[in-house]
């Protein structure tokens, strides 16, 4: 998913499961931070990140929408040569959630790489993505994708033609939709937690 072509001085992973406490962090020079968030029930939350120079930030945000919620992710790119990646994968089961993902790179910055990739599957609920790339400089490489859809018909047909009921096939596709975002380590944490619950 992300190609690392640089060694970072410090690599930190922040794992968040079902905890919607607001988060405020800074990514210092030459550092890399990965923030993994999973929510069984997405709630209001705000994440604010400042990025300085030569740093790498990845935010992976996934979960189920069951209640109305507003999620704000703000990244302020202050220095140069940074990479910023924000991925969301949500499944709207009920009600509505809004994701505002705002990444700012001001006039004096150079050579920053910004990617926003926001994807959702809508079941009975809905989602609004507001991807904001506020870049006041041409010295930036920024792109954003936002896709909201249902299930992939070909994938459903494939699984059903192996005998899986429609619901089972959807369950499997939902799980893979979310899991494809995360590393094995984080997935293991998610699984362990599920087993504790059972």
């Amino acid at each position, binding site marked *: 998913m992300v190609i690392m072509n640089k060694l970072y001085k410090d690599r930190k992973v922040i794992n968040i499961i079902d905890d919607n406490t607001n988060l405020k962090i800074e990514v210092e020079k030459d550092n890399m931070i990965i923030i993994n968030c999973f929510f069984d029930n997405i709630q209001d939350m705000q994440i604010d990140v400042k990025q300085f120079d030569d740093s790498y930030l990845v935010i992976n945000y996934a979960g189920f929408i069951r209640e109305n919620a507003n999620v704000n992710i703000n990244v302020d790119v202050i220095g140069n040569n940074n990479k910023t990646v924000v991925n969301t994968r949500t499944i709207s089961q009920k009600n509505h959630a809004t994701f505002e993902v705002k990444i700012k790179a001001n006039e004096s910055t150079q050579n920053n790489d910004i990617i926003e990739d926001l994807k959702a599957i809508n079941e009975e609920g809905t989602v609004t993505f507001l991807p904001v790339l506020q870049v006041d400089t041409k010295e930036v490489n920024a792109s954003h994708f936002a896709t909201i859809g249902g299930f992939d018909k070909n994938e459903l047909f494939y699984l*059903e*033609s192996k*005998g899986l009921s429609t619901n089972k096939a959807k369950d499997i596709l939902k799980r893979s939709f979310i899991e494809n975002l995360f590393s094995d380590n984080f997935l293991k944490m998610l699984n362990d937690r599920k087993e504790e619950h059972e």
Partner: protein
Amino acid sequence: MFKIMGLTAKVDNNIILNDFNMEINDGEIHVIMGHNGVGKSTLCKIIMNDENYDILNGKILFNGKNLRDLKTYEIAREGIMLISQNPIAIEGVTNAEVLRTALRETRNDKINIFDFNKKMEEVCDKLKLSRDFIHKDINVGASGGERKKIELLHMAILEPKFIMLDEIDSGLDVDAIKDVASFINEYHKETKCSILIITHHPNIIDYIKPNYVHILDEGHIVKTGDYLLAKQIEKYGFVSTNAMTEDGNHE
């Protein structure tokens, strides 16, 4: 018995099948040939009740049940399986997971994971397919030929009674065709299943002997023969073969 009566179907407002009829008795092997775009893959997907296709008329019967009344997964559970021309890849879902889930759902009984894994490994070995694929995502990073073998792995585990092989031979090298054919022959011998083979090359029927070979054109079968009909097609093409009036034509 599998039987199609008067099937007319369209996709995107084009009639692809027009009063199509066909009957396959238990244990029989039939072949359908026909030029590109004539509707061979469409026929297979309609049998599986793919919602992209509209059936206007006709019946599709399997052991007395009208498949038109059933959903795709119910058709699969009746024992019908399609190995499609271009099996898709699904990221994040492994072959083992799909097969385990399918067995759990369809056979209500608990499956013994040890036996299940052992069988998968045996099948991979027979197919000369790397065992690694068992726990890899479905068809992800698999070559065209490997995908066909992965689908045959699914077949061996799910044990269908009627199998449609849509160009199973495309993408297979000469040795792989022999391996795949002997695998299918063995399965056929063991299970007495019925098979519908779609192909452009009589090569595969050198190894899997069919009872009948049909030519599909203008929405229905225009000629039926045996193995020799496939050879004629290879030699003379569809146009001249259709015009011939020798044996094999029992319409």
